[in-house]
């Protein structure tokens, strides 16, 4: 018989894993996924308590959280994309500009690799190439 503590334990494990991941990883996308995992742990708690008490409040809260998480995902991924375009890196440690005045930047002794060589992915062109007249380019 699966009882309330089982749910709660699974929720807590999810939350804990997410938390540890969030604090230990520096890749923004991984951090984001960890945060999502923490959210799911919480959602599980809501659902478990909702079932335990026998009413729909938990499920409603879960729906809300899922909606919010979706919005957050859209927003966060868009921001990561913008950040990546500017620094060619997904390292959260690269972004320290919001620190207090006159506080030296923390120097990263082991930075994540940046992909300066690697351009944004480009779709392979399909179909025939347009035929261009070879013209002298005048400077």
């Amino acid at each position: 018989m699966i009882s309330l503590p089982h749910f709660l334990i699974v929720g807590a494990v999810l939350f804990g894993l997410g938390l540890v991941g969030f604090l230990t990883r520096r890749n923004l996308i991984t951090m984001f996924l960890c945060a999502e995992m923490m959210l799911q742990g919480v959602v599980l708690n809501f659902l478990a308590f909702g079932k335990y008490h026998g009413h729909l409040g938990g499920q409603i809260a879960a729906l809300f959280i899922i909606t919010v998480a979706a919005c957050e995902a859209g927003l966060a991924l868009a921001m990561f994309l913008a950040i990546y375009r500017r620094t060619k890196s997904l390292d959260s440690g690269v972004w320290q500009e919001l620190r207090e005045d006159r506080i030296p930047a923390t120097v990263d002794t082991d930075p994540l690799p940046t992909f300066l060589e690697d351009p944004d992915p480009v779709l392979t062109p399909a179909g025939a190439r347009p035929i261009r007249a070879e013209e002298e380019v005048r400077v």
Partner: protein
Amino acid sequence: MSDLDPAESALIALGLPLIASIVAALLGTAKLGKYAHWPVIVAFAAAAAVAAGAMLKLSGMTGESISASSASLTWFQAGSLSVTYSIALDPLSAIMLLTVTFVGTFIAIFSASYMHGDEGFARYFSIMALFVFAMLLLVTADNFLVLVAGWEGVGLCSYLLVGYYHAKPAAAAAARKAFLVTRLGDVGMILGIFLLWQLGGYRTDFNGMFEHIATHPDTHGQLTLACLLLFCGAVGKSAQMPLYVWLPDAMEGPTPVSALIHAATMVTAGVYLLARCAPLFVLAPDVQLIVSVIGGSTAFLAAFLAMAQNDLKRVLAYSTVSQLGFMFMALGTGGLIAPSLAVTAAVFHLFTHAFFKALLFLGSGSVMHAMGNVIDMRKFGGLRKVMPTTHLTFLAGSAALAGVPLLSGFWSKDQILDSILEAAASGGTYAGGYLIVLMVAMGTAGLTAFYTFRAYFLTFWGTERVPEEAHGHAHESPAMMTIPLIVLAVGAVAIGFAVEPLTHAFSDFLGRTPALVMANEIAKAPGGGHFDAHEHPHFNWAVAGISSAVALLGVFLAFRVYGNGGPEQVPDGLHGVYTLSRNKLYVDEIYYAAIVKPAELLATAGRQIDQFFAVLVRLVGSVPEFIGAAVRPMQNGLVQFYGLGMVLGLGVVLAVVILRSTR
């Protein structure tokens, strides 16, 4: 022009200098500065013509008192107080209007030549026109607020003109001194005006206010206080003791400015104010005695100081202070004698003084022009041959100032002495005081003749000496400078005789000023002063004889001592007196030690206290700063670090919750 209402003429005369000032300023910005004198001269001359027309029109009016006032625009209104822009022309203001514009015209013509080629030419003429405008506003105002506007305008323009050579530290200091010292008096005057509003039932027009005050006798001595405060303003503006110190320093401005300040536009304002407020001062006999005594002591002190000055312009400056003292002596007699008589004597002297003092200043300007801006009488002498026109006109001015019989100054000074004598003989409460004033006045008249002719002899007699600064081409000034001198000299010689002694035209005309008629009535009413009924000046042979004798004695003494011209010899036994006089009785030093120094000490102490509190406040302010500095490194911009912070915070909260629930 003849069909103009006098009040409209006054408005036109008022507007012309203002327009000229603006046009001159615009010419200056349009790089046409060298033509800036034209609008000013034309405007002054036109204003003088308009003023003369208005005066004729006014004197043609019938009635015991004559005046004309313009339609008034409301300036502001507060409760029962309503202030309007209103202009009124009565004989008193008409005389002032004509004097200011007429003398101003010739000073402007003189300046055009004197200031030629100066880089601030347009600025000079613009401010000069504004100066005259402010003075005209002052004399035509029909209520105290408009008067104060003119009064302050005059103060501002004098500041600007005295400090005309603003790059020169002495000029800047003199301008500041003039402004601040007159401001001391102005404070009193403003307070006096506030008090008068209250006493005058919040009526603002002069005659209405005077009437209200006359019909509602005050019982608490407030009127005396108000009159005293008004007199403070006059003391500041008209350079009386103890605030006369700014006027001699005002010599730092260009010489025609001195002529303007001394003859027409500034120092006469105080005399005008007291003349205008005669109905009030009649009701305050205590103040009247103070006015006379201050006037007398100023006249004597200034004459004493003028006696040994080496700077020609300073001699003239002190003589102005002294002559203004004479005017105040006369003003102070109103009440014991018919107020109209007292005011006539003062204003008549003001009128003749305007001519000969403008003449003397312009003459000294002419000398200065020829001598390469040297004005120290020790450095030149014997200029009789070099500058014949200047010499003769200066002689005319000196003789008029000294009170040589039949010249302008003689008639007006005589009237003043006569009114003081009558006040002393009136048997009023303070008659004894006036007797002393009379003796001081007589002595001062002698001193006046002495110092004036000392300056004259030192400058024009003896062997010819010209300073090096003139570069060997000392010459008579151009016609544009000598013509104003000649015109003013004619005025200085003849104007007094022309308008008063035979026809009494001046006193009759002035006596019809509504304020003076009212003052006479107040003084005649029971409880007012006690004076013989006659309200017309009469020629007193004894006074005239004594004053002429004293004046001629002064001239003779000056001739005996200085007839050979320079270099100056100090009469034996008078070295101490001369040293005192030359050092201005150490008044500036005393003022510095008694007023400026303590004020500076106070300011220093205040600054120290201020800094103490500033340190205290900074100390309190630094506490949060330190805390901030301590915790600032936490804001390092690393997301993980913040996340860790949150987790730790969560841990603490959880720990507390768990501990509390298990206990």
